[in-house]
């Protein structure tokens, strides 16, 4: 009855539940949705951004080329104001934004801006522009600002159809701040598009999780029903997926379990009915026999010695047989759950005193009592009498006088107070290996004793009677010597009136 082992798994289950099937399914669904929404958004964003940038770049390169093609230069190119004025003219007409235009020729460096040499143009771009006469561009990020740098080598006509690189290379540097703003706006749009998408995905996610989990929930409910004894529980099998297989397997197992349990119950029922029937059948002849034992006892004195002994033996054993049959009947009723509790509110101390005095155990000093007055409890007086009589009788037979019967009540934190009755004897105590079996039927703790006065069912009946009262009984040994039986019955004295 200890609750120790229970608390651990309960805590563990709560922690596992946080990552339960529902949560995991939902997470998986959200993950898929997040990946697809994110990927779509990212790809769209990238395409849009590239298109945006390419448009800007192509416009810039094309218009730069056009601008450059309108200039005329003398060779060798002369640096100075004229050149700078030329570059400023190109820079002003820059598309889509104004450029800073740089010119490099031999050792001549000029620009439309303040610095004749750009810090943004990379050596790679310069090398490419010199190595082959192609327009080329490169996107550079400097100090967090993206720039488009265009290199435009120039050629001039040496003949009607022939061109020759002039050695003059013009560079345009265009900060892409506007494009940056647009791209950032795109990014925001992609993100703002993906997040509501995720939120919307949550709803089908929940529905999907629900549809997957419903069979699992049914399974759980069914398993709980089975556990509480409804073995005819079955699960509806839907579809042909793994969960349906699981449901089928569950149903098959449940069917087998039900069959097995039914067979066991039937076998048990048969055995119980047999014991009950045997007792019943024995009782009727016993009733006749018991009625005439007196006659035998009285007349035995007038018979010859052997006949008298035989007659007395028959009489005595008839009595014992009657007790045994009555006890068997009582046990059968407990097994058939046919035992009824006819409770009455009684004074417990008085009830115990009556039990002891009816059996003449208080005539001498064999039984001592510590029975405080005023304890009233709702008990079945007849069954309580049997319990006390069995315990005290057992203590007197197997333990040793004096036997102490002690009565007290104890408040339990759980709720109702309990009535505690202790029966202690002064014998050698119960052997440790016998303790677990002391309430078994026909169990003989004392192997040397072939037959005792009791039926061998006394303690088993005691246990059943106590359980019928909702109580518990324990057998143990006192520190010194002697056995102690502790009987605990919840007190329901006042509240539950019958």
């Amino acid at each position, binding site marked *: 009855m200890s609750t120790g082992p229970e608390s651990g798994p309960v805590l563990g289950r709560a922690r596992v539940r946080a990552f339960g099937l529902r949560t995991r399914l939902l997470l998986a669904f959200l993950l898929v949705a997040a990946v697809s929404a994110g990927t779509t958004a990212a790809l769209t964003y990238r395409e849009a951004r590239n298109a945006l940038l390419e448009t800007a770049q192509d416009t810039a390169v094309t218009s730069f080329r056009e601008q450059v093609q309108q200039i005329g230069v003398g060779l060798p190119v002369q640096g100075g104001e004229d050149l700078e004025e030329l570059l400023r003219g190109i820079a002003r007409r820059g598309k889509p934004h104004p450029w800073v235009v740089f010119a490099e020729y031999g050792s001549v460096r000029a620009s439309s801006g303040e610095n004749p040499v750009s810090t943004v143009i990379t050596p790679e771009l310069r090398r490419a522009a010199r190595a082959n006469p192609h327009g080329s561009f490169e996107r550079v990020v400097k100090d967090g600002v993206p720039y488009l740098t265009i290199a435009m080598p120039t050629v001039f006509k040496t003949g009607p159809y022939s061109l020759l690189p002039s050695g003059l290379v013009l560079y345009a540097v265009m900060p892409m701040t506007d494009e940056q703003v647009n791209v950032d706006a795109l990014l925001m749009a992609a993100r703002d598009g993906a997040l509501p998408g995720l939120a919307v995905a949550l709803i089908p996610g929940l529905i999907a999780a629900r549809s997957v989990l419903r069979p699992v929930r049914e399974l759980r409910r069914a398993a709980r029903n089975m556990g509480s004894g409804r073995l005819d529980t079955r699960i509806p099998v839907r579809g042909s997926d793994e969960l349906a297989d699981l449901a089928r397997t569950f149903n098959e197992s449940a069917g087998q379990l039900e069959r097995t349990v039914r067979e066991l119950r039937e076998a048990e029922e048969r055995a119980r009915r047999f014991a009950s029937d045997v007792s*019943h059948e024995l*009782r*009727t*002849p*016993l*009733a*006749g*026999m*018991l*009625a*005439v*034992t*007196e*006659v035998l006892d*009285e007349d035995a004195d007038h018979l010859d010695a052997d006949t008298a002994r035989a007659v007395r033996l028959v009489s005595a054993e008839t*009595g014992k047989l*009657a007790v045994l*049959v*009555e006890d068997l*009947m*009582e046990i059968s*009723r407990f097994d058939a759950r*046919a035992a*009824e509790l*006819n409770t*009455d*509110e*009684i*004074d417990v101390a*008085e*009830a115990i005193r*009556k*039990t002891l005095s*009816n059996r003449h155990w208080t005539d001498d000093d064999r039984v001592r009592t510590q029975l405080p007055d005023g304890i*009233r409890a709702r008990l079945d*007086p*007849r069954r*309580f*009498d049997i319990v006390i009589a069995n315990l005290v009788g057992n203590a007197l037979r197997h333990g040793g006088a004096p036997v102490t019967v002690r009565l007290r009540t104890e408040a339990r934190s759980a709720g109702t107070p309990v009535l505690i009755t202790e029966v202690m004897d002064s014998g050698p105590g119960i052997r440790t290996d016998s303790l677990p079996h002391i309430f078994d039927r026909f169990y003989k703790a004392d192997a040397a004793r072939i037959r005792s006065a009791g039926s061998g069912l006394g303690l088993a009946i005691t246990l059943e009677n106590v359980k019928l009262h909702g109580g518990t009984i324990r057998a143990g040994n006192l520190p010194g010597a002697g056995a102690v039986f502790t009987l605990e019955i919840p007190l329901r*004295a*006042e509240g539950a*009136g019958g």
Partner: protein
Amino acid sequence: MPRVLLIEDDPSVREGVELGLRRRGHEVRAAATGEAGLAAMAEFRPDLLLLDLMLPGMNGVQVCRQVRERSQLPIIMLTARGDDFDVVIGLEAGADDYIVKPARTEVIEARIRAVLRRLDDGGAGRPAIEFYGELAIDRVGLTVTKAGRPLALAPSELKLLLHLAAAPEQVFSRQQLLEHVWEHSYHADARLVDACVARLRGKIEDEAGSPRYVQTLRGFGYRFGPL
């Protein structure tokens, strides 16, 4: 010695009980069926009926009812423990007490004596007839009238009423009543008391549902009055 009519279908029980009681000096007539028993009654005129509940044909409860229609003959049922339902029905039908089979003859005889014993308490120093409301109780003549009409009370009912009325407004627990009225042990079946109280109320009370004379004190027992 009282004359006992025994109705019991099982031959061995019938014979054993008859033999044991006769040895103790009772005059016993045994019958195997309810019908035979009822037929023997007029001729035998028993002082007490020992009635097995489980009978072929007419069962014990029916026999009990038929007897009660005509007389207040003391009736003790013979029953086996576990037939609890039959006990209650038998008691409601008017049986005064019951004995669980198998029982020794001395137990049976003790019960017979208890049922037949007159209540001898409270006789002295009392008026011959006591009046409580509409009830008039004659302790000497052992008759009870209500509003002048005599009431037919079975022995256990009469004894219970006399015992309660002897100490008006005193509460008796059912265990006490079992010990004093039925001479049972303290732990005997309290349903005996409840069934008898129910029958008594049906005869003396105006409304059995709200009793005046025999009142219940829940959790403690019964008392007579206050009116």
